[in-house]
């Protein structure tokens, strides 16, 4: 489980253009479920996901990861939840590498290199043998039906194919939590439904999935477990699917 307690994120603090994207958010996000953050553009969905994913530090408040402390040698008390907001950058990197898998709105694949290399990229720094990583990457590409493009440059892929490659990349280090920011923004409805099916499959494999979206195919999907609605950086509604 992930808990956020009074989390606030203000950009350009004490500078002209100061802007609070997330304001005093307190929420519990259960493990092994699909949680969808919905809301209009600028409601703070992306900011909330980047905060949870350790990509940016909150201005105030705390974020805890429950039941994962034993994975990290720097956590002394294994029974206590892992408080990630105050951790030094090197520990946050470890958490990003091992716990989270990110799927970005624009896919954010590295252009100019092959599909296979893109998928392998998060594992380069783990010190694992490339041959093993390559094997795993090919399996994932096969799983997402893009293995035939493994040696093509990512620039040449269609939107749906790029999205699948991004999912494969997010899963290469076998993370516990998958974070997807507007994953269907550039997909047609068929591909969006396919994406939700993939996500559902991942949930069944035991992954926790957090999605930020205002696409009805995602927000109203039967596969999601929980919806958290945001407006102006504040949670205005949350509820379960069932």
């Amino acid at each position, binding site marked *: 489980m992930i808990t956020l307690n009074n989390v606030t994120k203000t950009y350009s603090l004490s500078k002209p253009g100061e802007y609070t994207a997330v304001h005093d958010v307190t929420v519990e996000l259960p493990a092994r479920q699909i949680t969808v953050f919905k809301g209009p553009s600028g409601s703070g969905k992306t900011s909330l996901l*980047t905060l949870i*994913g350790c*990509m*940016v*530090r909150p201005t105030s408040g705390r974020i805890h990861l429950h039941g994962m402390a034993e994975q990290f040698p720097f956590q002394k008390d294994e029974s206590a939840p892992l408080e990630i907001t105050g951790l030094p*950058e*090197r520990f946050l*990197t*470890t958490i*990003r*590498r*091992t716990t989270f898998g*990110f799927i*970005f709105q624009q896919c*954010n694949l*590295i*252009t*100019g*290199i092959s599909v296979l*290399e893109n998928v392998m*990229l*998060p*594992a*380069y*720094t*783990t*010190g*694992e*043998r*490339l041959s093993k*990583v390559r094997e795993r990457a090919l399996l994932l590409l096969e799983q997402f039906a893009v293995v035939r493009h493994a040696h093509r440059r990512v620039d040449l892929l269609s939107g749906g194919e790029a999205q699948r490659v991004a999912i494969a*990349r*997010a899963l290469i*280090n076998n993370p516990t939590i998958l974070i997807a920011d507007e994953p269907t923004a550039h997909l047609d409805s068929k591909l969006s439904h396919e994406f939700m099916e993939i996500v559902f499959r991942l949930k069944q494999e035991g992954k926790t999935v957090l999605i930020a979206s205002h696409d009805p195919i995602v927000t109203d999907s039967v596969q999601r477990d929980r919806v958290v609605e945001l407006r102006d950086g504040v949670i205005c509604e949350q509820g379960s699917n069932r």
Partner: protein
Amino acid sequence: MITTRERHRNILDFALSSLGRRAGRNLSLLTMYCLLIFVLASLLFFVSALKREAARLLEDAPDLVVQRLVAGRQDLIPENYGAGIAAIRGVAHVEPRLWGYYFDSWNGANYTVIASDKPTVKDGIAAIGSGVARSRKIHAGELFPLRSPGTEPLLLEVGAIFPGTSDLMAADLIILTPSDFHTLFNFPQGKFTDLAVTVTNRKELPMVAAKIAALYADSRPILKSEIQRTYQSIFDWRGGMILLVLLSAVLSFIIFAWDRATGLSAEERKEIGILKSIGWDTSDVLLLKFWEGCAISLPAFLCGVIAAYCHVFFFSAPFFSPVLKGWSILYPQFQLVPVVDISQLLVLFFFTVVPYITATIIPNWRTATMDPDAAMRS
């Protein structure tokens, strides 16, 4: 568990495949870098080899040369000075020398003319350097005239031409007998150009020189080490002159490299943000940039140095030789003995490769220390 070796290997692997993404940019950088190293390394190799060659040739020079000064200018030295110097304790041998310069109005060249008793020359037969032979277009056995102060020119036969290996010192040399020398320059009898002095113990050279200066107030003793230093300085100076000319090229390269290395585009900053967001540490990003810098600078350095080595030692440095070998019209043509000064190469390495890698890492470090989200937005 993270193994450092694998991590380095993986990141190096990615760095190499990354280079292909900006092939045009990297290729132009590699070419310029290589060219710069080639020019600088050629200069270093050439000056080092010349200095070594000069030092080798000076090994046979006399320990001490005594000249006579009149009104601050070199004048002919009387024969009796030799007898006086020979009587000084520690002096093993004194040899009076006859030598001078001959200006050849036919081609504007200056020859060094030396009188010698050696059997290679006889009256009317001279040995000449290959530069003289080239400029006069003469071969062994042929006759060549030299204008003398008398009414008739001195006609000499080419007895021998010095081999190219001794070209640095002998390209412009004419060796003839003392008698021909006197005729050629109308040189007064009983006087010499200078005296070559050999001592029994080289450690006593400064002491002997001081005694000579005390005995003949108008004499100027010159130690062999001073001549060697002069040669070294001349080549250093000429090398420095070229380096100065090349400075603009070096500066252009530095600006170019700095621009290429430091100018992080929005795309590059975003890439660093992506890498950090997928679990790359700041040190991983810097390691990637380090390997990228190495992948450009090390091959460029290696290619530049190898090309310079071939240019200097296989092709006799056609780009630099006119400036560095001499100012004379008679450029010596000789194959330099390969000599590589490792310390100079290290200096070149530290002044080219290290700054480039540093210039590559620093701007990336700034972005890599940002939050992934901030880096992607920047």
